């Protein structure tokens, strides 16, 4: 209630001041539309302010906080309940995924309570090479850790229902074995202590369905990734505390880095299909919000454990990868329009839907607001009239028109910056944390740098989101593909130009119109048009590894784990390097190993059988020519790999008929290796075959 009062007060003040400003300059025609758009946008920034403000108060006020961890969870005696840790993956970077699995498992082992945890790599990869690579990597890691009892791999033949379908598929096969499941993404990392604490909290609160942690970004290398990482570490603490303050036990779920009570999830959270067809209807893309709402509907609580720590993820390396990810989220969030009016779902859950929708549609509103403002200025300039301000209804403030506009600008900008300022203030009140951030001046310089670059990025994202919000309802949906997380992939000038040329063009045209209309307006609009015009070089700078490395070397945008990395992050780095070295030995067409290599073939066939995924493929032509077709057609090769008997038959055929050219030796030969990868060189002594 307090939150709502402050929110209404702040947003009301801003809206009244702006309405009065328009009134003083004559409120007519398009200005009504501008007022409506401004009101929506101001409500959103007032909400951001309130979140940060109450988060700050929540973190620093004496007494009991609104948090699931406010009560100390007792250490459970004896055995922990069975808990599975799930890694749903789809054509993901195998090295990173398995390195993460390894780092988390080792961290769990260090707690001495690893017996309760089973890890599952739940793949629904559709690219044969990725699939076989996953199997080899899983075997290698499980063997190395001697963890076959606890580290499992499952591949399902299709990816229907995408991530939520993958998890449902798992639950229908093994869900009843486990009391809790922890869901992690391919780029997630969680410490063993945090996993243990999550289980303990669930045990202590039997009415809790989901506990969501706040994953912080790590391992950012490009300038863009480092900015996002810095912001997540510094600002998300107060922001998450603010969220927890108003939502309490009616929190949200973001689909990963969270623990879920399996039984109520299975009973309540099978997703319905939405009316109409994709992209606006059909299968629910942003399943997490809906699952939180459904489990709440089932009578269970959902908490945000903002103070837990030890939960990490990785972000996209550049603006284009970020925009692509947002496009997917945008589609998912827009689908929530269907659920917004359902009386069966709790009100707070519907507020989460609304906030998710506004996160993207606000960009369209902002764009329209700027567009209409430009039209009003053009209209006024063409009228040839002079501006004679009338007295408004806030005359007790005694503001001139210029002062009035400055107050409005300062208010909006102040509210926008408030989460950053509260984040910095929160840090300054804790000397120990401040030292870990490199001291006050260093941190302030970083905040200024991050803010300036955010201001530059904002108009670019505004137009990206506007494009998504307009095109998705028109039927331009997205396919579910693995997101790019590898900074080494880089961003070429060609791709930057292709993806940002339209932004530059809009910026140039808009600036030309502003310049020819009104110089004062032109100068104000440079804040928008400048970044748009510069979007291509800006994008190249932001995706630069060199810029990121330079800043890191000179101590800028450093986060605490970069100064003092924990064992999990160190293990992750080491494991990724060693796995990369190991898997780089594999040939390009890794999938063919499942047919030719005696060990990989055995491993692949047995996994298929044990997971019940083997699917007979009728009419496989086992002669050399027939198999050559499979090699060149990934979709058919995928089908062949699903058939355990066919895999065995092909393997036999390959070794019985070495002269038939069904696979070239090059297929089995990695770059730089003189001989095919078989037997010893893959699983044993390097080059000892």
């Amino acid at each position, binding site marked *: 209630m307090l939150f709502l009062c402050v929110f209404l007060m702040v947003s009301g003040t801003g809206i009244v001041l702006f309405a009065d400003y328009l009134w003083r300059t004559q409120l007519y*025609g*398009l200005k009504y539309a501008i007022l409506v758009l401004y009101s929506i946008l101001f409500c959103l920034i007032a909400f951001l302010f309130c979140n940060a403000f109450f988060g700050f108060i929540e973190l620093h006020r004496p007494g009991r906080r609104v948090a699931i961890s406010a009560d100390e969870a007792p250490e459970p005696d004896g055995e922990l309940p069975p808990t599975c840790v799930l890694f749903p993956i789809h054509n993901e970077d195998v090295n990173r995924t398995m390195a993460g699995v390894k780092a988390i498992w080792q961290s769990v082992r260090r707690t001495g309570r690893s017996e309760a945890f*089973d890890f*599952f790599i739940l793949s629904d990869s559709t690219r044969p090479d990725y699939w076989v690579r996953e199997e080899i990597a*899983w075997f290698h890691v499980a*063997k190395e850790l001697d963890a*076959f009892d606890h580290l*499992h*791999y*499952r591949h399902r033949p299709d990816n229907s229902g995408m991530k939520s379908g993958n998890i*449902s598929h798992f*639950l*229908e*096969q*093994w*869900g*009843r*074995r486990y009391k809790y499941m922890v869901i992690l993404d391919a780029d997630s990392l969680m410490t063993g202590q945090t996993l243990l604490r999550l289980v303990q909290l669930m045990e202590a609160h039997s009415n809790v369905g989901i506990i969501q942690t706040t994953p912080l970004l790590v391992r950012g290398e490009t300038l863009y990734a480092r900015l996002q990482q810095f912001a997540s570490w510094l600002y998300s603490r107060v922001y998450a505390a603010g969220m927890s303050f108003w939502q309490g036990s009616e929190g949200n779920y973001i689909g990963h880095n969270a623990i879920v009570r399996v039984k109520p999830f*299975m*009973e*309540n*959270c*099978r*997703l*319905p299909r939405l*009316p*109409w067809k994709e992209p606006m209807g059909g299968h629910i893309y942003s399943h997490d919000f809906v699952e939180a709402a*459904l489990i709440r509907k089932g009578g269970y609580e959902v908490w945000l454990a903002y103070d837990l720590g030890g939960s990490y993820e990785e972000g996209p390396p550049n603006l284009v990868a970020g925009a692509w990810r947002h496009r997917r989220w945008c589609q998912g969030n827009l689908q929530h*329009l*269907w*659920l*917004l*009016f*359902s*009386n069966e779902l709790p009100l707070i859950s519907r507020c989460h839907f609304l906030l998710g929708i506004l996160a993207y549609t606000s960009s369209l509103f902002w764009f329209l607001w700027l567009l209409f403002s430009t*039209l009003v200025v*053009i*209209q006024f300039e063409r009228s040839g009239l002079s501006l004679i301000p009338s007295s408004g209804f806030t005359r007790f403030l005694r503001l001139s028109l210029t002062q009035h506009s400055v107050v409005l600008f300062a208010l909006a900008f102040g509210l926008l910056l408030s989460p950053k300022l509260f984040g910095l203030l929160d840090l300054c009140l804790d000397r120990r944390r401040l030292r870990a951030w490199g001291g006050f001046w260093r941190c302030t310089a970083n905040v200024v740098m991050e803010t300036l670059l955010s201001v530059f990025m904002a108009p670019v994202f505004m137009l990206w989101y506007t494009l998504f919000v307009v095109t998705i309802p028109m039927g331009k949906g997205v396919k579910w593909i693995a997101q790019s997380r590898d900074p080494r992939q880089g961003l070429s000038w060609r791709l930057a130009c292709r993806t940002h040329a339209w932004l530059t063009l809009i910026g140039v045209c808009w600036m030309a119109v502003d310049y020819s209309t009104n110089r004062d307006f032109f100068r104000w609009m440079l804040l928008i048009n400048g970044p748009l015009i510069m979007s291509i070089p800006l994008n190249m700078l932001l995706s630069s590894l060199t810029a990121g490395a330079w800043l890191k070397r000179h101590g800028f945008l450093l986060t605490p784990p970069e100064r003092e990395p924990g064992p999990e992050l160190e293990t992750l780095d080491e494991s990724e390097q060693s796995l990369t070295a190991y898997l780089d030995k594999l040939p390009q067409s890794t999938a063919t190993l499942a047919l030719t290599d*005696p*060990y990989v*073939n*055995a*491993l692949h066939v*047995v*996994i298929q059988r*044990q*997971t*019940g995924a083997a699917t007979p493929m009728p009419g496989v032509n086992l002669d050399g020519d027939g198999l050559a077709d499979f090699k060149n057609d990934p979709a058919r090769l995928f089908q062949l790999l699903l058939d355990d008997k066919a895999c*065995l*038959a092909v393997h*036999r055929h390959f*070794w*019985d008929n070495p002269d038939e050219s069904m696979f070239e030796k090059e297929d089995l030969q990695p770059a730089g290796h003189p001989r095919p990868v078989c*037997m*010893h060189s*893959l*699983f*044993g*002594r390097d080059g*000892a075959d």
Partner: protein
Amino acid sequence: MKTAMEQLRADVIAWMRHFTDLPSFDTDEAFLEARLALLLADMPSQWHTLFLATPPLPEAFVAALRERLESVPQFRPGRMEVHSLDLGLVPHLAEAALHTLARTPWLRLIVIWGFFISLFSLLFYFTR
């Protein structure tokens, strides 16, 4: 007459039978089990000198050959049912309208053109 590969398969299976219970009925299946056992025992890196060696062999290697691979634990099947959700009046109306528009292309054309014409008319009216 056997090919070299068939002979190797038979030798490996016969050798493995000294240590493990391989299914005897099918050569392909037995050879599959044998290959997996060798992989699990880490033969390629640790015991490569013992491949097809005459028994007795080191206990550790024999024990490793008898290990079993379980990529997943035993199934405990369950069902996740979809519960119907009342979306409320507005989505029902929207769905009905969308279906009507999809069924009647001429109506869809009128609505789309009507929307754009009204939008531009409004813009013209306010900025004239």
